[in-house]
């Protein structure tokens, strides 16, 4: 089920996502990013599939003061 979600987006889609955040990468950057993401996304999908509903995320750190 996860394989269709583990595909890396096209250069155009990545460019749009970057632009939406105010960043303007080159085509060469985006091709390299696609290659990089291809090493991560299949495992990301596998990890997502393995969670039960009670697997809560680890919290970001809370300082002593904030934790009180």
């Amino acid at each position: 089920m996860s394989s269709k979600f583990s595909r890396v987006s096209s250069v155009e889609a990545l460019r749009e996502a970057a632009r939406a955040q105010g960043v303007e990468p080159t085509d060469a950057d985006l091709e390299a990013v696609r290659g990089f993401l291809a090493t991560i996304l299949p495992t990301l999908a596998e990890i997502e599939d393995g969670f039960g509903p009670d697997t809560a995320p680890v919290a970001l750190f809370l300082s002593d003061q904030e934790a009180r």
Partner: protein
Amino acid sequence: MTLTQLAGRIRRGELSPRDAVADALARAESAQAALNAFITVRGDEALAEAEQLESHPDRGPLFGVPVAVKDVIDVAGTRTTAASRILADNVATEDSTVVARLRQAGAVVIGKLNTHEFAFGASTTSTHFGPARNPWDTDRICGGSSGGSGAVVAAGIVTGALGTDTGGSVRIPACLCGVTGLRPSTGRVPIRGVVPVSWSFDTVGPLARTAEDCALLLHVLAGVDGADPTSVRVPVPTYPDLLAPDMRGLRIGVVSHLFEGAIDPRVAETVETAVSELAGLGARVERIDALFLREADVAQQLVMLPEAAAVHLPWLRTRLAEYGDDVRVRLLAGLLLPATSVVTGQRSRRRLFEKAASLFEQHDVLVAPEMPIVAPRIGEDVVDVGGERLAYRLSLIPFNSPWSCLGLPAASVPCGFVDGLPVGMAIVGRRFDETTVLQVAHAFQQVTDWHERTPPVRA
């Protein structure tokens, strides 16, 4: 000479702080052409600080000892470049917490050390400041990102240096340069005044010749800082007083899968021999199955990459072309991962914490190879790992990310050589149990002399 020995000589009046600092500065200058380990040398400032110390009545544990710090760690009045073009002219206005603590202990910072750009890589081959070179073979990398820190200790320029470790950046250069390095537990040492990579994993740790020296430095560095929300309020043991070398009864888990597959078999064999030394000291050594740790390789990336992108977002918008190619691509990947990836990474860490807890119910420390290979040549981005061609960056992740992902203390200690280049053994402890990690490392160094070997480039 070790840091502990040097501190003793100065304390006894056999060497003045000024002479110790002047000697270190001379060594730094003479080795710079060969190693490119320093980005900034604090010549006049360090000498002036050493002279001031001589009339100072309060003599701390590092009184007069010259040290150097990675160039992501702020020293007031000195530039912090992070080996980047973006911060090339960035002069720190305040000391970082760790530098303030070094000074309070009497140490003198003689300079800022080369690093991978923004501490975001494991080669220390900045396109802006040039590569740091390995004292064992100057055609090879020092590892990274604290590559300059590994080089200066190995070459004997200083007896102690600070690095930072997010995903291996103290341990990797310690291993490839043949020195001892310690990543403390996340939260053990404050990171205020350090250029961040990823708040969830960033640590500051010592590199020195011996575990005893690392214990001394850690004792100076550790402890909560009210101004740093990532630092944790836990007791700080007196590490140097706790290095009893008696290993009888200690339970050591050998992480089996890291000795197989994508590793140079000669490196694996060297670390196996080191493990048998530990058994010979009376420790109970058992091989363990911990394949679940492989999930940490990606889990850490899922959290670290977006956090790094968040750190850099203003510059990604305005100065994107000024990053080196490799760093730019990884930061963009962090920007473009799905928004849920951080949550997935943190959920994965929850699962990993639960499984790792059961490992540490049965074992006091875990041991493994620190790296699967010896130092690659500069520019060798793809390496031969046990007959497999792998990106250098990917080859090291399974050996480093699990311990970072779990926030555990992990040391790399020299344990042999392959092709004349150093090999390191990783020793990993429970969270905030740096004491046991240092005890095992120290005990190993009482019966071996790998940490005493000196490289061809020796200042």
